[in-house]
């Protein structure tokens, strides 16, 4: 037996898993991604009775199928990395549904310890759990915990450590006819997988794509045998096997849960009273608008303040730098090409992402996010999303970067991609600066409004198209409505800090590199060449001044700077002297749509990889250029020459 112990924390969402993780590991944690997947991987260490324990916080899931990437990651982790013990955190207040997942976990035959969490909240709901009886029923130890207060965690770890010396647990058997079929298939399995044979047999019956591929490719005759067994059961039950096995698991969970549960008189909590207001057809929306606006306002006013602070700091550094080293070609180039990119990232993205992560997880942990998704579901359907997409899209008005990152709250890869795409089309604060500074000031406020209207219309159309062309089956809103509760500030704070660190580490190099390439091109005189190449589009099709080509390229770095740059290239900040109102409209439109800024691209790359980030950027460039030219030709007809 090795000295180091690995423990995986598994369970449904909203059960307090992350709180347990945080209580156990404190600041000894690291947040990253699962290799090649956009799923957060939080790991941490803890020293217990002189032994080092590594803890992995698995994502919150409801099943071990292939519904979401989180599920695939979790089952692969348990089977392949084979942690010494799995601590399954269950919500004492929703034991039956949580145990249905436990039953599935047991199919993987790990060493299992159950943490029956939030046992105090369950008591308020009138539910008393006999953990000893529960453990007996399951054949695995079960312990009561109140993670937020740290109650029961020492016992939990001690039990988990002790478990490492015992054998792995036995799965609970299902009805005899199902077990017979499983047995028949199990005997015929010849291919070695990291998974237990019984689990593989069940997954084959469930038509699990991944497992089918592994098994049938190597052993095609197996398909016939599985098919036979499945048909046998399906015709006896009148339902498909997925339904049969789900019913079995829930029946087991129900039996175990009722044997270990007794009831007392419940108390109506403050949370439930707020819940009544939050779902109210009128008051619910009032409460939502007030909370979203205040959240929004606090994120961005704090972000602005922080960005200003960072900006000032770098301005001082800037002066000091040139005073110390002198203003030569080399020092200027180094500053512009290397330091400026870093500053850009620090000023544009970081000040907003920290508070965003914080507020988003506070909203999520308190249970309020679910209410907002509930109220906004039908509105979001019009743009190809469901209710959960509201928050990221809304945040896009401030900054697209947190919006793209926030798309993770959608469950499936498909929904995440559509959500991030839509969010990247929302006019962020930087783009609003251009629209207001140019169009509202020089052309008229109603024309600025028109640009927003066009953008919303584009979001509406492109969102629907994305909904149609994105691969996989669209899935509507299916979510748990958790009760309201106080979020754990220490857990949220720590997690925010580690996520922010990961973002800086992953996205900053892309932002710095993007800046470096543009600056290098500028120094090498390539920009004039590019301007020449682009002029058929910028001048010919879009009708813009020729300097616009360079400006648009720099605009990729920071969109709010396009205006200043355009002015400095023209030698005046009075835009009306060198641009017609129509040109201003077209310019602002193109800046609004043409491509996500480099920080957003970095976020897209981080979340979806280079290919998808490239496709999204390309689509937006094409849409901006094509429609920009159309706009130029339509404007005279609606009264703008």
């Amino acid at each position, binding site marked *: 037996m090795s000295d180091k112990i690995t423990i995986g924390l598994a369970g449904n969402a909203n059960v307090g898993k992350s709180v347990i993780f945080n209580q156990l590991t404190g600041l000894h944690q690291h947040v990253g991604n699962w290799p090649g997947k956009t799923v957060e991987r939080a790991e941490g260490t803890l020293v217990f009775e002189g032994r080092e324990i590594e803890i992995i916080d698995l994502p919150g899931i409801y*099943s071990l199928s292939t519904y979401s990437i989180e599920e695939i990651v979790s089952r692969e982790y348990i089977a392949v990395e084979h942690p010494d013990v799995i601590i399954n955190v269950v919500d004492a207040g929703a034991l039956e549904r949580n145990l249905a997942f436990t039953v599935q976990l047991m199919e993987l035959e790990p060493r299992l310890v159950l943490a029956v969490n939030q046992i105090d909240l369950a008591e308020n709901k009138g539910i008393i759990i006999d953990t000893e009886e529960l453990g007996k029923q399951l054949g695995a130890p079960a312990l009561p915990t109140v993670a937020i207060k740290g109650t029961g965690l020492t016992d939990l770890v001690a039990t988990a450590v002790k478990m490492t010396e015992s054998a792995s647990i036995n799965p609970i058997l299902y009805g005899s006819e199902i077990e017979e079929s499983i047995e028949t298939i199990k005997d015929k399995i010849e291919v070695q997988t990291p998974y237990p044979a019984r689990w593989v047999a069940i997954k084959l019956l469930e038509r699990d794509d991944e497992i089918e591929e592994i098994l049938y490719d190597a052993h095609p005759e197996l398909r016939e045998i599985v098919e036979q067994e499945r048909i046998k059961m399906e015709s006896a039950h009148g339902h498909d096997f997925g339904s049969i096995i789900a019913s079995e698991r829930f029946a087991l969970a129900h039996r175990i849960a009722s044997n270990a549960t007794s009831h007392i008189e419940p108390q109506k909590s403050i949370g439930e009273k707020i819940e009544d207001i939050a779902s109210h057809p009128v008051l619910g929306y009032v409460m939502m608008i007030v909370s979203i606006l205040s959240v929004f306002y606090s994120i961005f006013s704090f972000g602005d303040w922080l960005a200003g602070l960072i900006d000032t700091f770098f301005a001082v550094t800037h002066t000091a730098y040139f005073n110390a080293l002198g203003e030569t070609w080399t020092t200027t180039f180094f500053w512009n090409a290397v330091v400026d990119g870093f500053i850009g990232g620090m000023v544009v993205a970081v000040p907003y992402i920290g508070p965003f992560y914080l507020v988003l997880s506070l909203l999520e942990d308190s249970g309020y996010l679910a209410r907002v998704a509930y109220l906004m579901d039908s509105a979001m359907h019009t743009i190809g999303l469901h209710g959960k997409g509201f928050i990221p899209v809304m945040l896009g008005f401030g900054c697209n970067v947190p919006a793209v990152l926030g798309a993770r709250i959608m469950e*499936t890869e498909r929904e995440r991609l559509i959500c991030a795409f839509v969010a990247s089309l929302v006019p962020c604060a930087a783009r609003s600066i251009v629209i207001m500074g140019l169009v509202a000031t020089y052309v008229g406020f109603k024309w600025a409004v028109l640009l927003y209207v066009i953008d919303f219309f584009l979001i509406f159309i492109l969102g629907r198209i994305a909904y149609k062309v994105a691969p996989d089956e669209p*899935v509507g809103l*299916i*979510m*748990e409505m958790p009760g309201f509760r106080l979020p754990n500030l220490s857990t949220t704070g720590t997690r925010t800090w580690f996520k922010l660190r990961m973002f800086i580490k992953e996205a900053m190099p892309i932002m710095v590199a993007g800046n470096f390439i543009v600056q290098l091109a500028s120094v090498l005189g390539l920009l004039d060449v590019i301007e020449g190449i682009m002029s058929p589009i910028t001048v010919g099709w879009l009708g813009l001044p020729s300097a616009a080509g360079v400006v648009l390229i720099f605009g990729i770095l920071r969109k709010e700077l396009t205006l200043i740059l355009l002015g400095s290239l023209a030698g005046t900040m009075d835009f009306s002297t060198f641009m017609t109102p129509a040109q201003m409209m077209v310019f602002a439109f193109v800046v609004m749509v043409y491509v996500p800024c480099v920080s957003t691209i970095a976020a897209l790359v981080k979340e979806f990889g280079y290919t998808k980030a490239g496709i999204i950027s390309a689509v937006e460039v094409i849409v901006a250029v094509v429609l920009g030219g159309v706009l130029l030709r339509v404007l005279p007809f609606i009264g703008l020459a």
Partner: protein
Amino acid sequence: MSSESVEEYLEAIYSINERGEKAKNQELAENLKVSPPSITQMVKRMANEGLVEYEPYKGAALTGKGNALAQKVVRKHRLLERFLYDYLKLPFEKVHDEACRMEHSLSDETTAALCKALDNPDVCPDNLPIPHCSLGVDDCEQCEEARSKIDVETPLTTQLSRLHPGEEGVVAYIHSGRHSGKRLQDMGLTPGTHIKMVNAAPFKGPVEIEVRGTSLALGRGLAAHVYINVEDEGQPWKRIHPHGPHHS
């Protein structure tokens, strides 16, 4: 009240609700050719039986239970219309009245046979959708198999999205894509599960239901694929699946 006239009322309210409106007494009186006082009396009685939710001056909306009953008779009506129009070549204006007269005496067995003979049509001659049968089958073969396992009457089911807050029922079957179906099962919505409608969000938003001691929100579109058995007593799904899932 005779079951025939209740069926007529259910059908009339269903047709109006189908357009997204509540059935006002005035309109019902015109459609059913009955005096307004008798309409008021009947609608109140139906409200007492939990078939409609009635708000004075606003009108009546069918509950889940009312919908289940209405869908059964509307299904018969619209299948008959199809048959009269397509096969017997009756003139378009006549099929509605003819179907009205025949629908009440049509047995479930004959309805299933009619459905098969017409090759499971989607809409009636007026282009209105024919409600699904309540067996949760995809084709005629499955229908025959399922029918061989039940008694005379088919179960009373309707979509989850049609239930009113406070109504309860048992999941009969789910007709949706593989992914969503799987997800619904993972969240505990397996056939035979008892559910209670808690709330429905405005603007055709999601529904909130109580299932297995937890609260769940489902998009309205998805909820329209979940069929709920709304019968008060007896759970006919048990008759279909003698070895079916256990549930207390």
